[in-house]
Protein backbone atom coordinates (compact mmCIF):
# COMPACT_ATOMS: atom_id res chain seq x y z
CA UNK A 1 0.00 0.00 0.00
CA UNK A 2 2.61 2.49 1.08
CA UNK A 3 4.75 1.37 -1.88
CA UNK A 4 2.00 2.26 -4.27
CA UNK A 5 1.54 5.61 -2.59
CA UNK A 6 5.25 6.29 -2.70
CA UNK A 7 5.46 5.39 -6.36
CA UNK A 8 2.51 7.56 -7.06
CA UNK A 9 4.09 10.45 -5.23
CA UNK A 10 7.34 9.92 -7.12
CA UNK A 11 5.55 9.85 -10.45
CA UNK A 12 3.62 12.96 -9.56
CA UNK A 13 6.80 14.75 -8.62
CA UNK A 14 8.49 13.69 -11.84
CA UNK A 15 5.57 14.88 -13.91
CA UNK A 16 5.63 18.21 -12.14
CA UNK A 17 9.34 18.54 -12.84
CA UNK A 18 8.85 17.67 -16.51
CA UNK A 19 6.10 20.22 -16.96
CA UNK A 20 8.24 22.80 -15.19
CA UNK A 21 11.09 22.15 -17.65
CA UNK A 22 8.65 22.31 -20.55
CA UNK A 23 7.49 25.72 -19.39
CA UNK A 24 11.03 27.01 -19.02
CA UNK A 25 12.31 25.59 -22.31
CA UNK A 26 11.13 28.28 -24.78
CA UNK A 27 12.59 31.10 -22.70
CA UNK A 28 15.75 29.08 -22.25
CA UNK A 29 16.19 28.62 -26.00
CA UNK A 30 15.61 32.31 -26.65
CA UNK A 31 18.15 33.24 -24.00
CA UNK A 32 20.62 30.80 -25.47
CA UNK A 33 20.21 32.18 -28.98
CA UNK A 34 20.08 35.90 -28.44
CA UNK A 35 21.96 36.36 -25.19
CA UNK A 36 24.41 33.57 -24.59
CA UNK A 37 25.58 33.13 -28.17
CA UNK A 38 26.44 36.80 -28.80
CA UNK A 39 28.18 37.01 -25.45
CA UNK A 40 30.31 33.98 -26.13
CA UNK A 41 30.94 35.27 -29.60
CA UNK A 42 32.09 38.70 -28.39
CA UNK A 43 34.25 37.20 -25.71
CA UNK A 44 36.03 35.05 -28.29
CA UNK A 45 36.26 37.94 -30.69
CA UNK A 46 37.75 40.25 -28.08
CA UNK A 47 40.78 37.99 -27.96
CA UNK A 48 41.50 38.36 -31.64
CA UNK A 49 42.88 41.11 -33.82
CA UNK A 50 41.81 41.60 -37.40
CA UNK A 51 44.16 40.13 -39.95
CA UNK A 52 46.03 38.07 -37.36
CA UNK A 53 45.68 34.43 -36.51
CA UNK A 54 45.10 33.13 -33.03
CA UNK A 55 44.54 34.24 -29.49
CA UNK A 56 45.87 37.59 -28.30
CA UNK A 57 45.49 39.96 -25.35
CA UNK A 58 46.35 42.94 -27.52
CA UNK A 59 42.90 44.56 -27.25
CA UNK A 60 42.88 44.39 -23.48
CA UNK A 61 46.43 45.59 -23.23
CA UNK A 62 45.39 48.53 -25.36
CA UNK A 63 42.42 49.46 -23.22
CA UNK A 64 44.23 49.07 -19.92
CA UNK A 65 47.48 50.78 -20.87
CA UNK A 66 46.54 53.49 -23.32
CA UNK A 67 46.02 56.49 -20.95
CA UNK A 68 43.05 57.79 -22.91
CA UNK A 69 41.23 54.45 -22.73
CA UNK A 70 42.16 53.79 -19.13
CA UNK A 71 40.78 57.22 -18.27
CA UNK A 72 37.51 56.21 -19.93
CA UNK A 73 37.26 53.11 -17.79
CA UNK A 74 38.00 54.98 -14.58
CA UNK A 75 35.67 57.78 -15.56
CA UNK A 76 32.87 55.28 -16.21
CA UNK A 77 33.45 53.65 -12.83
CA UNK A 78 33.42 57.05 -11.16
CA UNK A 79 30.20 58.20 -12.82
CA UNK A 80 28.43 54.92 -12.19
CA UNK A 81 29.44 54.67 -8.55
CA UNK A 82 28.51 58.27 -7.83
CA UNK A 83 25.22 57.85 -9.67
CA UNK A 84 24.32 54.71 -7.75
CA UNK A 85 25.28 56.11 -4.38
CA UNK A 86 23.58 59.46 -4.86
CA UNK A 87 20.43 58.10 -6.41
CA UNK A 88 20.13 55.46 -3.71
CA UNK A 89 20.59 58.02 -0.94
CA UNK A 90 18.10 60.44 -2.47
CA UNK A 91 15.67 57.66 -3.30
CA UNK A 92 15.89 56.23 0.21
CA UNK A 93 15.19 59.65 1.68
CA UNK A 94 12.30 60.15 -0.72
CA UNK A 95 10.85 56.72 -0.02
CA UNK A 96 11.13 57.28 3.74
CA UNK A 97 9.41 60.62 3.38
CA UNK A 98 6.60 59.11 1.32
CA UNK A 99 6.16 56.22 3.73
CA UNK A 100 6.27 58.04 7.03
CA UNK A 101 5.14 61.60 6.46
CA UNK A 102 1.43 61.83 5.88
CA UNK A 103 0.68 65.25 4.49
CA UNK A 104 -0.85 66.71 1.38
CA UNK A 105 2.57 67.47 -0.04
CA UNK A 106 3.81 63.92 0.46
CA UNK A 107 0.63 62.54 -1.08
CA UNK A 108 1.14 64.77 -4.10
CA UNK A 109 4.79 63.78 -4.47
CA UNK A 110 3.75 60.16 -4.06
CA UNK A 111 1.50 60.53 -7.07
CA UNK A 112 3.95 62.47 -9.20
CA UNK A 113 7.34 60.96 -8.58
CA UNK A 114 6.97 58.16 -11.08
CA UNK A 115 6.14 60.47 -13.97
CA UNK A 116 9.75 60.61 -15.19
CA UNK A 117 9.45 56.86 -15.80
CA UNK A 118 6.75 57.52 -18.36
CA UNK A 119 8.69 60.05 -20.42
CA UNK A 120 10.78 58.52 -23.21
CA UNK A 121 14.47 58.96 -22.46
CA UNK A 122 15.40 61.08 -25.46
CA UNK A 123 12.47 63.41 -24.94
CA UNK A 124 13.41 63.86 -21.31
CA UNK A 125 17.04 64.55 -22.10
CA UNK A 126 16.19 67.15 -24.72
CA UNK A 127 13.69 68.76 -22.37
CA UNK A 128 16.30 68.99 -19.64
CA UNK A 129 18.92 70.25 -22.09
CA UNK A 130 16.57 73.01 -23.20
CA UNK A 131 16.15 73.95 -19.56
CA UNK A 132 19.72 73.79 -18.33
CA UNK A 133 21.91 74.79 -21.23
CA UNK A 134 23.64 78.14 -20.97
CA UNK A 135 21.12 79.73 -23.32
CA UNK A 136 18.30 77.70 -21.81
CA UNK A 137 15.16 78.38 -19.83
CA UNK A 138 16.85 78.84 -16.46
CA UNK A 139 19.40 81.23 -17.82
CA UNK A 140 16.78 83.27 -19.67
CA UNK A 141 14.43 83.38 -16.71
CA UNK A 142 17.27 84.58 -14.51
CA UNK A 143 17.94 87.38 -16.92
CA UNK A 144 14.27 88.21 -17.38
CA UNK A 145 13.17 88.09 -13.74
CA UNK A 146 16.26 89.10 -11.80
CA UNK A 147 18.37 90.72 -14.45
CA UNK A 148 21.33 88.49 -13.66
CA UNK A 149 23.49 86.63 -16.09
CA UNK A 150 23.31 83.08 -14.86
CA UNK A 151 24.74 80.10 -16.65
CA UNK A 152 23.98 76.73 -15.06
CA UNK A 153 27.12 75.26 -16.68
CA UNK A 154 25.67 71.78 -16.75
CA UNK A 155 26.22 70.95 -20.39
CA UNK A 156 29.25 69.01 -21.62
CA UNK A 157 30.42 68.17 -18.13
CA UNK A 158 30.11 65.53 -15.45
CA UNK A 159 27.78 67.58 -13.25
CA UNK A 160 25.23 67.66 -16.06
CA UNK A 161 25.63 63.96 -16.73
CA UNK A 162 25.15 63.12 -13.07
CA UNK A 163 22.11 65.40 -12.83
CA UNK A 164 20.50 63.66 -15.76
CA UNK A 165 21.37 60.23 -14.38
CA UNK A 166 19.75 61.13 -11.08
CA UNK A 167 16.71 62.39 -12.95
CA UNK A 168 16.26 58.93 -14.42
CA UNK A 169 17.33 56.76 -11.52
CA UNK A 170 15.88 58.35 -8.40
CA UNK A 171 12.25 57.56 -9.27
CA UNK A 172 13.19 54.04 -10.21
CA UNK A 173 15.10 53.36 -6.99
CA UNK A 174 12.47 55.13 -4.92
CA UNK A 175 9.87 52.82 -6.40
CA UNK A 176 11.83 49.70 -5.40
CA UNK A 177 12.64 51.01 -1.93
CA UNK A 178 9.08 52.21 -1.38
CA UNK A 179 7.82 48.71 -1.98
CA UNK A 180 10.18 47.45 0.72
CA UNK A 181 9.16 50.16 3.19
CA UNK A 182 5.49 49.49 2.52
CA UNK A 183 6.13 45.96 3.75
CA UNK A 184 7.16 47.16 7.22
CA UNK A 185 4.00 47.22 9.35
CA UNK A 186 3.36 50.35 11.41
CA UNK A 187 3.02 48.25 14.53
CA UNK A 188 6.68 47.18 14.22
CA UNK A 189 7.79 50.77 14.34
CA UNK A 190 5.27 51.75 16.97
CA UNK A 191 6.29 48.93 19.25
CA UNK A 192 9.90 50.07 18.94
CA UNK A 193 8.87 53.61 19.88
CA UNK A 194 6.83 52.11 22.69
CA UNK A 195 9.79 50.41 24.34
CA UNK A 196 11.76 53.62 24.22
CA UNK A 197 13.43 54.00 20.84
CA UNK A 198 13.58 57.53 19.43
CA UNK A 199 13.13 58.20 15.74
CA UNK A 200 16.79 57.87 14.82
CA UNK A 201 17.11 54.68 16.82
CA UNK A 202 14.04 53.23 15.09
CA UNK A 203 15.60 54.05 11.74
CA UNK A 204 18.90 52.45 12.65
CA UNK A 205 17.61 49.35 14.42
CA UNK A 206 14.34 48.63 12.60
CA UNK A 207 13.95 50.30 9.24
CA UNK A 208 17.48 49.82 7.92
CA UNK A 209 17.72 46.10 8.72
CA UNK A 210 14.26 45.47 7.31
CA UNK A 211 14.89 47.33 4.06
CA UNK A 212 18.63 47.13 3.39
CA UNK A 213 18.28 44.19 1.04
CA UNK A 214 15.99 46.09 -1.30
CA UNK A 215 18.16 49.18 -1.02
CA UNK A 216 21.14 47.11 -2.16
CA UNK A 217 19.11 45.65 -5.00
CA UNK A 218 18.07 49.13 -6.09
CA UNK A 219 21.68 50.31 -5.97
CA UNK A 220 22.94 47.39 -8.04
CA UNK A 221 20.20 47.89 -10.62
CA UNK A 222 21.19 51.52 -11.02
CA UNK A 223 24.85 50.53 -11.20
CA UNK A 224 24.31 47.93 -13.91
CA UNK A 225 21.91 50.11 -15.85
CA UNK A 226 24.40 52.96 -16.00
CA UNK A 227 27.54 51.05 -16.92
CA UNK A 228 26.14 50.62 -20.41
CA UNK A 229 24.51 54.06 -20.54
CA UNK A 230 24.75 55.65 -23.95
CA UNK A 231 21.95 58.08 -24.75
CA UNK A 232 22.42 60.37 -21.78
CA UNK A 233 26.23 60.66 -21.98
CA UNK A 234 26.09 61.03 -25.74
CA UNK A 235 23.61 63.89 -25.71
CA UNK A 236 24.96 65.68 -22.65
CA UNK A 237 28.69 65.13 -23.10
CA UNK A 238 29.07 64.83 -26.85
CA UNK A 239 32.66 63.85 -27.48
CA UNK A 240 34.23 65.47 -24.43
CA UNK A 241 37.11 63.46 -22.97
CA UNK A 242 37.14 61.26 -20.95
CA UNK A 243 34.11 59.39 -22.23
CA UNK A 244 31.75 56.85 -20.81
CA UNK A 245 32.46 53.32 -22.06
CA UNK A 246 29.11 53.31 -23.86
CA UNK A 247 30.37 56.08 -26.13
CA UNK A 248 33.75 54.49 -26.41
CA UNK A 249 32.07 51.30 -27.58
CA UNK A 250 30.01 53.23 -30.07
CA UNK A 251 33.16 54.90 -31.41
CA UNK A 252 34.99 51.60 -31.84
CA UNK A 253 31.99 50.13 -33.50
CA UNK A 254 30.63 52.93 -35.66
CA UNK A 255 33.56 55.31 -36.17
CA UNK A 256 36.50 52.95 -36.43
CA UNK A 257 34.55 49.80 -37.36
CA UNK A 258 36.93 47.84 -35.13
CA UNK A 259 34.73 44.94 -34.10
CA UNK A 260 37.46 43.25 -32.06
CA UNK A 261 38.13 46.29 -29.90
CA UNK A 262 34.41 46.91 -29.67
CA UNK A 263 34.07 43.36 -28.41
CA UNK A 264 36.78 43.98 -25.82
CA UNK A 265 35.02 47.13 -24.57
CA UNK A 266 31.82 45.12 -24.24
CA UNK A 267 33.60 42.46 -22.23
CA UNK A 268 35.10 45.11 -19.95
CA UNK A 269 31.65 46.61 -19.41
CA UNK A 270 30.30 43.18 -18.75
CA UNK A 271 33.00 42.55 -16.15
CA UNK A 272 32.20 45.82 -14.39
CA UNK A 273 28.53 44.86 -14.34
CA UNK A 274 29.29 41.43 -13.03
CA UNK A 275 30.84 42.94 -9.90
CA UNK A 276 27.50 44.41 -8.97
CA UNK A 277 25.70 41.32 -10.22
CA UNK A 278 27.65 39.42 -7.60
CA UNK A 279 26.57 41.92 -4.95
CA UNK A 280 23.00 41.57 -6.19
CA UNK A 281 22.98 37.80 -6.17
CA UNK A 282 24.72 37.70 -2.82
CA UNK A 283 22.32 40.06 -1.10
CA UNK A 284 19.37 38.30 -2.72
CA UNK A 285 20.34 34.71 -2.14
CA UNK A 286 21.83 35.04 1.26
CA UNK A 287 18.93 34.03 3.43
CA UNK A 288 19.45 35.70 6.73
CA UNK A 289 18.65 33.59 9.75
CA UNK A 290 15.44 35.49 10.46
CA UNK A 291 14.01 34.81 7.04
CA UNK A 292 14.19 31.06 7.36
CA UNK A 293 10.96 29.40 8.31
Amino acid at each position, binding site marked *: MSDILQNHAKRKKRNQLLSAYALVLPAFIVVLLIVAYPIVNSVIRSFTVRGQEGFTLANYVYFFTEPRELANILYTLFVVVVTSVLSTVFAYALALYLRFVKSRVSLLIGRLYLIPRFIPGMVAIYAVIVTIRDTGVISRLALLLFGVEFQPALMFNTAGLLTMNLWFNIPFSAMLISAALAGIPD*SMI*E*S*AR*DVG*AGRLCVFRTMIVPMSIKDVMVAATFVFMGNVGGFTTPYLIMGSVQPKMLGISLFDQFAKYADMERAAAVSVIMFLICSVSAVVYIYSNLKER*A*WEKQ
Partner: protein
Amino acid sequence: MAEITTNIKPKLRIIDMTKRYKNGDGVEHINLDVYPGELVTMLGPSGCGKTTILRTIGGFLDIDDGDITIDGQSIALLSPEKRPTAMVFQSYNLWPHMSIYENLAFGMKLRKVPKEQMNQQILEMLKMVGMIGSEKKFPSQLSGGQQQRIAIARSLLLKPEVLLLDEPFSALDAKIRVQMREELIRIQQELGITVVFVTHDQEEAMAISHRIVVMNKGVFEQVGTPIEIYDHPVTRFVADFIGEMNFMETPDGIRAVRPESLSLSRGSQGDLHGHIRTIMVLGHYAEVNVQCGDAVIKCNVQRDQMAGWAVGDEVSLSYTKEQFFATETVE
Protein backbone atom coordinates in the same frame (compact mmCIF):
# COMPACT_ATOMS: atom_id res chain seq x y z
CA MET B 1 -13.77 46.20 43.17
CA ALA B 2 -15.61 49.50 42.92
CA GLU B 3 -16.06 49.80 46.70
CA ILE B 4 -12.49 48.86 47.51
CA THR B 5 -11.02 51.33 45.10
CA THR B 6 -12.93 54.47 46.05
CA ASN B 7 -10.30 55.61 48.57
CA ILE B 8 -7.31 54.64 46.44
CA LYS B 9 -5.80 57.07 43.97
CA PRO B 10 -6.30 56.09 40.32
CA LYS B 11 -3.23 54.89 38.45
CA LEU B 12 -4.51 56.06 35.10
CA ARG B 13 -6.99 58.83 34.52
CA ILE B 14 -8.57 59.85 31.28
CA ILE B 15 -10.16 63.22 31.84
CA ASP B 16 -12.72 64.59 29.41
CA MET B 17 -10.57 63.42 26.55
CA THR B 18 -11.48 64.06 22.93
CA LYS B 19 -9.73 62.68 19.89
CA ARG B 20 -11.15 63.39 16.49
CA TYR B 21 -9.70 62.16 13.20
CA LYS B 22 -9.69 64.47 10.20
CA ASN B 23 -12.77 62.78 8.79
CA GLY B 24 -14.79 63.49 11.95
CA ASP B 25 -14.65 59.97 13.42
CA GLY B 26 -13.22 59.49 16.87
CA VAL B 27 -14.13 59.66 20.55
CA GLU B 28 -15.42 62.55 22.64
CA HIS B 29 -15.52 63.47 26.34
CA ILE B 30 -14.04 60.23 27.55
CA ASN B 31 -13.67 59.90 31.33
CA LEU B 32 -12.18 56.83 32.95
CA ASP B 33 -10.26 56.04 36.13
CA VAL B 34 -8.24 52.85 36.30
CA TYR B 35 -6.96 51.85 39.72
CA PRO B 36 -3.63 50.22 40.58
CA GLY B 37 -3.65 46.50 39.93
CA GLU B 38 -6.91 46.67 38.07
CA LEU B 39 -7.64 45.02 34.74
CA VAL B 40 -10.12 47.15 32.84
CA THR B 41 -11.46 46.01 29.50
CA MET B 42 -12.84 48.21 26.79
CA LEU B 43 -15.44 46.22 24.96
CA GLY B 44 -17.50 47.19 21.98
CA PRO B 45 -18.30 46.44 18.37
CA SER B 46 -15.82 47.07 15.58
CA GLY B 47 -15.18 50.74 14.91
CA CYS B 48 -16.52 52.03 18.25
CA GLY B 49 -13.21 53.66 19.17
CA LYS B 50 -11.48 51.17 21.48
CA THR B 51 -8.17 51.23 19.64
CA THR B 52 -8.40 55.00 19.37
CA ILE B 53 -8.55 55.38 23.16
CA LEU B 54 -5.79 52.84 23.72
CA ARG B 55 -3.53 54.58 21.22
CA THR B 56 -4.07 57.94 22.88
CA ILE B 57 -2.93 56.37 26.16
CA GLY B 58 0.14 54.84 24.51
CA GLY B 59 1.02 58.11 22.79
CA PHE B 60 0.47 56.99 19.22
CA LEU B 61 -2.31 59.52 18.76
CA ASP B 62 -2.34 63.12 19.94
CA ILE B 63 -5.44 64.14 21.82
CA ASP B 64 -7.47 67.19 20.83
CA ASP B 65 -8.88 68.00 24.24
CA GLY B 66 -8.81 66.88 27.88
CA ASP B 67 -5.95 65.12 29.61
CA ILE B 68 -4.48 61.74 30.43
CA THR B 69 -2.56 61.25 33.66
CA ILE B 70 -0.59 58.43 35.23
CA ASP B 71 -0.06 58.71 38.98
CA GLY B 72 -1.34 62.26 38.74
CA GLN B 73 1.22 63.33 36.13
CA SER B 74 -0.05 64.38 32.73
CA ILE B 75 1.39 62.27 29.93
CA ALA B 76 -0.68 63.81 27.17
CA LEU B 77 2.25 65.66 25.62
CA LEU B 78 4.86 62.93 25.89
CA SER B 79 5.98 60.91 22.88
CA PRO B 80 5.43 57.13 23.08
CA GLU B 81 9.04 56.40 24.05
CA LYS B 82 8.77 58.75 27.04
CA ARG B 83 5.55 57.28 28.42
CA PRO B 84 5.54 54.72 31.22
CA THR B 85 3.13 52.57 29.22
CA ALA B 86 3.75 49.46 27.14
CA MET B 87 1.52 48.27 24.38
CA VAL B 88 0.91 44.87 22.87
CA PHE B 89 -0.55 45.06 19.40
CA GLN B 90 -2.96 42.71 17.71
CA SER B 91 -0.38 41.28 15.34
CA TYR B 92 3.07 41.86 13.85
CA ASN B 93 4.39 42.54 17.27
CA LEU B 94 7.86 41.15 17.26
CA TRP B 95 10.73 42.49 15.24
CA PRO B 96 11.39 39.81 12.63
CA HIS B 97 15.11 40.49 12.24
CA MET B 98 15.87 40.02 15.91
CA SER B 99 16.00 36.78 17.83
CA ILE B 100 13.62 36.30 20.74
CA TYR B 101 16.42 37.22 23.12
CA GLU B 102 17.17 40.39 21.16
CA ASN B 103 13.49 41.27 21.03
CA LEU B 104 13.29 41.02 24.80
CA ALA B 105 16.58 42.78 25.40
CA PHE B 106 16.01 45.70 23.03
CA GLY B 107 14.09 47.98 25.37
CA MET B 108 16.25 47.08 28.35
CA LYS B 109 19.42 47.91 26.44
CA LEU B 110 17.96 51.32 25.64
CA ARG B 111 17.42 51.72 29.36
CA LYS B 112 21.03 50.66 29.98
CA VAL B 113 20.08 47.79 32.27
CA PRO B 114 23.31 45.97 33.25
CA LYS B 115 23.84 42.82 31.27
CA GLU B 116 23.78 40.36 34.18
CA GLN B 117 20.56 41.77 35.50
CA MET B 118 19.06 41.83 32.02
CA ASN B 119 19.86 38.19 31.36
CA GLN B 120 18.40 37.16 34.67
CA GLN B 121 15.19 39.15 34.18
CA ILE B 122 14.75 37.82 30.65
CA LEU B 123 15.13 34.29 31.91
CA GLU B 124 12.60 34.85 34.68
CA MET B 125 10.16 36.41 32.27
CA LEU B 126 10.55 33.57 29.77
CA LYS B 127 9.78 31.19 32.57
CA MET B 128 6.72 33.18 33.52
CA VAL B 129 5.28 33.05 30.01
CA GLY B 130 6.33 29.44 29.53
CA MET B 131 8.80 30.08 26.73
CA ILE B 132 12.12 28.97 28.20
CA GLY B 133 14.46 27.73 25.49
CA SER B 134 13.19 29.97 22.70
CA GLU B 135 15.86 32.67 23.15
CA LYS B 136 17.77 31.86 19.99
CA LYS B 137 14.74 31.43 17.75
CA PHE B 138 13.38 34.07 15.44
CA PRO B 139 9.76 35.25 15.51
CA SER B 140 8.93 33.49 12.23
CA GLN B 141 9.82 30.21 13.92
CA LEU B 142 7.16 30.61 16.62
CA SER B 143 3.41 30.02 16.48
CA GLY B 144 1.01 32.93 16.80
CA GLY B 145 0.30 32.17 20.44
CA GLN B 146 3.98 31.89 21.26
CA GLN B 147 4.69 35.18 19.53
CA GLN B 148 2.05 36.95 21.61
CA ARG B 149 3.53 35.46 24.79
CA ILE B 150 6.89 36.93 23.85
CA ALA B 151 5.25 40.23 22.98
CA ILE B 152 3.64 40.37 26.40
CA ALA B 153 6.91 39.35 28.03
CA ARG B 154 8.72 42.10 26.14
CA SER B 155 6.28 44.69 27.43
CA LEU B 156 6.34 43.40 31.00
CA LEU B 157 10.15 43.43 31.16
CA LEU B 158 10.06 47.20 30.98
CA LYS B 159 7.91 47.31 34.13
CA PRO B 160 5.35 49.68 32.66
CA GLU B 161 3.00 51.57 34.96
CA VAL B 162 0.16 50.60 32.67
CA LEU B 163 0.08 47.70 30.22
CA LEU B 164 -2.05 48.25 27.13
CA LEU B 165 -3.31 45.29 25.15
CA ASP B 166 -5.14 45.77 21.86
CA GLU B 167 -6.98 42.57 21.00
CA PRO B 168 -3.80 40.59 21.60
CA PHE B 169 -5.46 37.21 21.20
CA SER B 170 -7.93 37.84 18.43
CA ALA B 171 -5.71 36.32 15.75
CA LEU B 172 -5.38 33.07 17.71
CA ASP B 173 -7.67 30.08 17.49
CA ALA B 174 -10.33 29.55 20.12
CA LYS B 175 -8.51 27.01 22.30
CA ILE B 176 -5.25 28.91 22.49
CA ARG B 177 -7.19 32.09 23.12
CA VAL B 178 -8.80 30.66 26.24
CA GLN B 179 -5.44 29.38 27.43
CA MET B 180 -3.76 32.75 26.84
CA ARG B 181 -6.56 34.46 28.73
CA GLU B 182 -5.95 32.30 31.77
CA GLU B 183 -2.25 32.98 31.62
CA LEU B 184 -2.81 36.70 31.35
CA ILE B 185 -4.98 36.62 34.47
CA ARG B 186 -2.31 34.66 36.33
CA ILE B 187 0.50 36.99 35.28
CA GLN B 188 -1.56 40.07 36.02
CA GLN B 189 -2.29 38.80 39.52
CA GLU B 190 1.28 37.72 40.13
CA LEU B 191 2.69 41.11 39.16
CA GLY B 192 -0.23 43.24 40.30
CA ILE B 193 0.16 45.31 37.18
CA THR B 194 -2.46 47.76 35.91
CA VAL B 195 -3.89 46.68 32.57
CA VAL B 196 -6.16 48.22 29.97
CA PHE B 197 -7.36 45.50 27.64
CA VAL B 198 -9.28 45.97 24.41
CA THR B 199 -11.49 43.34 22.85
CA HIS B 200 -14.67 42.97 20.88
CA ASP B 201 -15.24 39.51 22.36
CA GLN B 202 -17.71 39.84 25.24
CA GLU B 203 -16.92 36.41 26.59
CA GLU B 204 -13.23 37.31 26.81
CA ALA B 205 -14.12 40.57 28.56
CA MET B 206 -16.36 38.79 31.07
CA ALA B 207 -13.68 36.21 31.76
CA ILE B 208 -10.70 38.43 32.51
CA SER B 209 -11.88 41.83 33.69
CA HIS B 210 -12.24 43.50 37.04
CA ARG B 211 -14.29 46.13 35.30
CA ILE B 212 -15.64 46.42 31.79
CA VAL B 213 -16.26 49.57 29.79
CA VAL B 214 -18.93 48.87 27.21
CA MET B 215 -18.54 51.22 24.28
CA ASN B 216 -20.73 52.05 21.35
CA LYS B 217 -20.08 54.56 18.58
CA GLY B 218 -17.41 56.48 20.45
CA VAL B 219 -19.21 56.79 23.82
CA PHE B 220 -19.20 54.78 27.04
CA GLU B 221 -22.54 53.03 27.48
CA GLN B 222 -21.73 51.52 30.87
CA VAL B 223 -18.78 51.00 33.18
CA GLY B 224 -19.00 48.26 35.78
CA THR B 225 -17.95 44.85 37.01
CA PRO B 226 -18.78 41.94 34.70
CA ILE B 227 -21.61 40.93 37.03
CA GLU B 228 -23.08 44.43 37.21
CA ILE B 229 -23.00 44.67 33.47
CA TYR B 230 -24.50 41.26 32.95
CA ASP B 231 -27.20 41.54 35.60
CA HIS B 232 -28.01 45.24 35.36
CA PRO B 233 -27.35 46.54 31.89
CA VAL B 234 -28.28 50.21 31.89
CA THR B 235 -29.02 50.54 28.22
CA ARG B 236 -30.61 48.33 25.66
CA PHE B 237 -27.33 48.28 23.73
CA VAL B 238 -25.45 46.82 26.70
CA ALA B 239 -28.25 44.32 27.34
CA ASP B 240 -28.03 43.20 23.74
CA PHE B 241 -24.25 43.20 23.42
CA ILE B 242 -23.43 41.27 26.60
CA GLY B 243 -24.70 37.71 26.67
CA GLU B 244 -27.99 36.70 25.14
CA MET B 245 -31.18 38.57 25.74
CA ASN B 246 -34.84 38.38 24.73
CA PHE B 247 -36.48 41.72 24.10
CA MET B 248 -40.23 42.08 24.40
CA GLU B 249 -41.96 45.25 23.34
CA THR B 250 -44.63 46.58 25.68
CA PRO B 251 -46.58 49.82 25.25
CA ASP B 252 -44.39 51.79 27.74
CA GLY B 253 -41.01 50.30 26.91
CA ILE B 254 -38.96 47.18 26.38
CA ARG B 255 -38.70 44.22 28.72
CA ALA B 256 -35.45 42.27 28.52
CA VAL B 257 -35.10 38.76 29.89
CA ARG B 258 -32.06 36.47 29.73
CA PRO B 259 -32.68 32.99 28.30
CA GLU B 260 -31.53 31.37 31.54
CA SER B 261 -34.07 33.36 33.59
CA LEU B 262 -36.95 31.69 31.81
CA SER B 263 -38.60 28.45 32.82
CA LEU B 264 -41.09 26.32 30.94
CA SER B 265 -44.33 24.91 32.32
CA ARG B 266 -47.57 23.44 31.10
CA GLY B 267 -50.83 25.17 31.80
CA SER B 268 -51.48 28.89 31.71
CA GLN B 269 -50.10 30.35 34.95
CA GLY B 270 -46.89 31.83 33.32
CA ASP B 271 -46.05 35.31 32.02
CA LEU B 272 -46.02 34.32 28.35
CA HIS B 273 -47.62 31.66 26.24
CA GLY B 274 -46.69 30.02 22.99
CA HIS B 275 -45.56 26.82 21.36
CA ILE B 276 -42.13 25.26 20.98
CA ARG B 277 -40.53 25.85 17.59
CA THR B 278 -37.15 24.22 18.02
CA ILE B 279 -35.17 22.35 20.65
CA MET B 280 -31.37 22.26 20.42
CA VAL B 281 -29.41 20.30 22.97
CA LEU B 282 -26.11 22.12 23.59
CA GLY B 283 -24.30 19.95 26.12
CA HIS B 284 -25.58 20.29 29.65
CA TYR B 285 -28.45 22.56 28.66
CA ALA B 286 -30.88 22.88 25.80
CA GLU B 287 -31.84 25.96 23.89
CA VAL B 288 -35.59 26.09 23.32
CA ASN B 289 -37.14 28.60 20.96
CA VAL B 290 -40.74 29.41 21.79
CA GLN B 291 -43.02 31.24 19.39
CA CYS B 292 -45.08 33.76 21.42
CA GLY B 293 -47.25 35.68 19.00
CA ASP B 294 -44.88 37.38 16.56
CA ALA B 295 -41.84 37.06 18.80
CA VAL B 296 -39.49 34.12 19.20
CA ILE B 297 -38.32 33.79 22.80
CA LYS B 298 -35.10 31.90 23.52
CA CYS B 299 -34.98 29.85 26.75
CA ASN B 300 -32.08 27.90 28.20
CA VAL B 301 -33.31 24.85 30.05
CA GLN B 302 -31.28 22.30 32.00
CA ARG B 303 -31.09 19.02 30.12
CA ASP B 304 -32.76 16.97 32.86
CA GLN B 305 -35.78 19.27 32.76
CA MET B 306 -36.21 18.73 29.04
CA ALA B 307 -37.77 15.31 29.30
CA GLY B 308 -41.29 15.25 27.99
CA TRP B 309 -41.07 18.41 25.90
CA ALA B 310 -41.40 18.16 22.14
CA VAL B 311 -41.54 20.56 19.21
CA GLY B 312 -45.07 21.94 18.79
CA ASP B 313 -46.05 21.62 22.48
CA GLU B 314 -48.08 24.42 23.96
CA VAL B 315 -45.98 26.00 26.68
CA SER B 316 -46.16 28.68 29.31
CA LEU B 317 -43.07 30.78 30.21
CA SER B 318 -42.31 32.46 33.49
CA TYR B 319 -39.26 34.50 34.52
CA THR B 320 -37.60 35.57 37.69
CA LYS B 321 -35.41 38.47 36.54
CA GLU B 322 -36.03 41.14 33.98
CA GLN B 323 -34.66 44.49 32.85
CA PHE B 324 -36.97 47.24 31.79
CA PHE B 325 -36.03 50.01 29.38
CA ALA B 326 -38.62 52.77 29.36
CA THR B 327 -39.31 54.14 25.91
CA GLU B 328 -37.26 57.36 26.34
CA THR B 329 -34.00 55.49 27.03
CA VAL B 330 -34.46 53.55 23.82
CA GLU B 331 -33.00 55.21 20.79
